[in-house]
């Protein structure tokens, strides 16, 4: 049975087994990846995976179960489990399923070239990334690995309210980790890019980016503890955006674990900050016609001119607030229920060049790498991360610095945005231009 038919069948069986409402989510994907080291293939992986998740509503109670066996027997069993599980959860009148969408955004998510390209060419592409890294600077002495990978996937969602959608997509990407050495000093750098179209993958720029990062850090010094202005390129700024993202979730707000709770319509960031989530973004890695429960995706302005406009919602949290879902039910796998997450979340560009961002800074820190970003506390917003980068003196980038920590609070950080670059760039689902921030504590000697 095809995914679409199976989803439909599971929904019907859910009703027949006694669920008031039911929903089936079927995902299957095929993946390929290759790793190169010193021009030789270190590994090749090929995969095929599938699964179905079922939500069952009994009264106002919601239960969930999943299975990787896409056959009628095991799916029937999953349905029974979901119904039994529902009986153990608390009743909640906001447990509802979305109705059929009235119109879907037109998106080009599938690139047939990814499937048609022969394996040999994909291997050559990974090798080209590694070559580009070596070619960019003679101080690059080795790579840990250079990779190419791609995935083709199909999603089918159906529910008992008549929702019945399915779509297909693909993406591909490459990465490299390099080591540069000079005298007795060893430093590392990495480059990575993921895109929807095979033709947009540029091995040279991935290799060069890794090398630039590693080489820039050679001969790094330590500095003493001080408070200085901070400048971040898009790659680092997007990681901080990742710490802010959970606070934008309507669920986190409703449950008192968001630092943005109660701040709707209020100033939460510097007045030059505009933050957008756009699931319909052309070439967006996380773009899709519908979210994880079949609601059409949208472009949502979250912060405009520093003022908080809305939170991200799925059907449940929207019902609780008496509003419409923003189409942000996230569901990375068939193994879980739809939660809330951003799609393509980005800060709008400003007009400053890099030179303009750095000018007037007498002493400052240009962050190239952070360590332990995942230890930031998304609930309190407190972060303290290991950092490496270039020291700024009199508006110029000077010597590299490592072995220090940078600490602060994510909300205060975004209130302190002083200038935005004109270089918006996406890393996976997050996008940002370069940003200049007001001073933060740098802990060192």
């Amino acid at each position: 049975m095809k995914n679409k038919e199976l989803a439909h069948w599971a929904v019907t069986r859910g009703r027949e087994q006694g669920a008031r409402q039911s929903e089936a989510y079927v995902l299957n994907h095929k993946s390929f990846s290759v790793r190169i080291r010193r021009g030789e293939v270190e590994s090749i992986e090929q995969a095929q995976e599938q699964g179905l998740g079922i939500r069952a509503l009994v009264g106002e109670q919601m239960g969930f179960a999943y299975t990787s066996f896409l056959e009628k027997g095991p799916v029937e069993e999953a349905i029974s489990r979901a119904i039994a599980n529902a009986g153990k959860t608390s009743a909640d009148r906001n447990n509802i399923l979305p109705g059929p969408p009235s119109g879907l955004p037109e998106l080009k998510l599938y690139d047939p070239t990814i499937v048609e390209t022969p394996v040999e060419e994909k291997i050559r592409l990974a090798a080209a990334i590694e070559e580009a890294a070596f070619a960019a600077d003679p101080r690059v002495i080795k790579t840990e690995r250079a990779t190419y990978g791609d995935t083709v996937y199909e999603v089918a969602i159906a529910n008992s309210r008549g929702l019945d959608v399915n779509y297909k997509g693909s993406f591909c990407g490459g990465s490299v980790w390099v080591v540069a050495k000079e005298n007795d000093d060893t430093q590392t750098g990495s480059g990575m890019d993921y895109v929807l179209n095979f033709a947009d993958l540029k091995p040279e720029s991935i290799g060069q980016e890794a090398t630039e990062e590693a080489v820039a850090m050679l001969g790094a010094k330590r500095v003493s503890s001080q408070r200085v202005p901070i400048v971040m390129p898009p790659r680092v700024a997007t990681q901080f955006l990742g710490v802010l993202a959970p606070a934008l979730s309507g669920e986190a707000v409703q449950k008192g674990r968001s630092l943005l709770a109660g701040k709707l319509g209020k100033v939460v960031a510097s007045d030059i900050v505009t933050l957008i989530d756009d699931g319909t973004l052309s070439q967006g890695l996380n773009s899709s016609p519908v979210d994880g429960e079949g609601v059409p995706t949208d472009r949502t302005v979250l912060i405009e001119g520093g003022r908080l406009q809305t939170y991200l919602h799925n059907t449940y949290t929207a019902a609780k607030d008496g509003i419409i879902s923003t189409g942000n039910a996230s569901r990375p796998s068939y193994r879980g229920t739809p939660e809330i997450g951003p799609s393509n979340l980005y800060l709008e560009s400003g007009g400053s060049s890099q030179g303009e961002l750095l000018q007037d800074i007498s002493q400052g820190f240009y962050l190239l790498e952070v360590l332990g970003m995942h230890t930031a506390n998304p609930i309190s917003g407190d972060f303290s991360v290991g950092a490496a980068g270039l020291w700024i003196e009199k508006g110029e980038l000077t010597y590299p610095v490592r072995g220090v920590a940078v600490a602060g609070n994510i909300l205060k950080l975004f209130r302190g945005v002083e200038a935005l670059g004109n270089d918006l760039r996406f890393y996976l689902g997050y996008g940002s231009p370069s940003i200049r921030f007001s001073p933060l504590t740098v802990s060192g000697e």
Partner: protein
Amino acid sequence: MYTEGELQEILAIALQGGGDYADIFTEEKVSNSVVCEDDLIERVNSGLEAGVGIRVLSGSSTAYTYTNDLSLPAVKKAAHVASKAAADGDKGVTVIDLCPRKPGTEFKILRRPEDVPIDEKVEAVIRGNKTARAVDERIVQVIVSYGDVRQRIQVANSSGALIRDERIRTRFVIHVVAQEGGVIQTGYEALGGLTGFELLTAGEPERLAEMAAKQAVLMLGAKPAPSGRMPVVMAAEAGGTMVHEACGHGLEADLVQKELSVYTDKLNKRVAAEVVTIIDDGTLANKYGSFSFDDEGTPAGRNVLIKDGVLTSYMYDRLTARQDGHPLTGNGRRQSYAYRPIPRMTNTYIAPGNTEPEEIIAQTEKGLLVKKMGGGQVNPTTGDFVFDVSEAYLIAHGKITIPVRGATLTGNGPKALEEIELVGSDLGFAIGTCGKEGQGVPVSDAQPTILIKQLIVGGTGP
């Protein structure tokens, strides 16, 4: 799971293209979870998944395919794809007759999750929730989650090994959010093991809930942590994130062989203070990182990594052991059938020493006492590491003074190990999911109370 005859046939197909070794990893995983938040039982989820991964080694290169279509034709096709990817001409390697192996370490599971009624699991979660909420009125949110997993694996390889293993893991995690004015702070406790429902003996959910709740409330009144270099005492109950990051990852043989570890070429050399002995032990009774066989079918091992400050062994999987001509150490692990095995830690700890823990604090003139650690990260090539501190106090004149919050500690692996000055006689474990190359595996880490001469404390205070 497949019969010996079927496995033999699949392995033969996998080797057709010219591999010199092949293995098949079959996995079936049943999981259940219960989540309470907002005073509601929000989620009761259960799942069943299964899949097969086929690996072919040819010299130092690996071909790996996986599928969760378990039908014999689909698995044979996957073996064929792996065989083609590894192709460099049939080397005539034949499959040795499969011979089932018995485990050297077995673990007692007293209450298998499938024998425990779901109501009892829900009840444990509710008890945790109630206890935490009763601790203080400033507690605004409590999230309690319970999870159990029963993973059955079968590994067969062309060298003739055939093993079956069943791992039952249970975990209980509680997050508490406290708020006062504009300040939000959190508390966290996690307990888990290669164990059944007996993990949650009477009073255990309540004990964990109270600890997490008290931590969140305590941190509301904490001052910002200081910034700068200072002596650090790490209490045993803080767990072993530091040892995991500062040296564990750097002793995994894949990084060492690629000369990407700061510990490359350091075998039999002094890499830590003489008081430091570090062990990785997958055989420890019912710990979160324990198992009978690793994910390549190698029996779990107890490996002394650093003895009295001298590096004695790295941690190997099959591929790296082949390359070094080293015996297998039982560290070949993977997240699931969807990943190939790589060298990973199991339960990693600094062995206890002779100093009384109280004595260590008493000897510290000025410094930071770390009572609870969070996650961490390391750059194994430079040795630079960070780890998060979720509960800490200042030490002045040998006494514990005020609580401080919001700090990450930064150091360099070999330097930090060299600067461990005192090692306590106690030992405390913490559990975690360790991430490497996108794969998460359950681990535990431990250490006694230790004094490190200096680390950089990354707070915002003076």
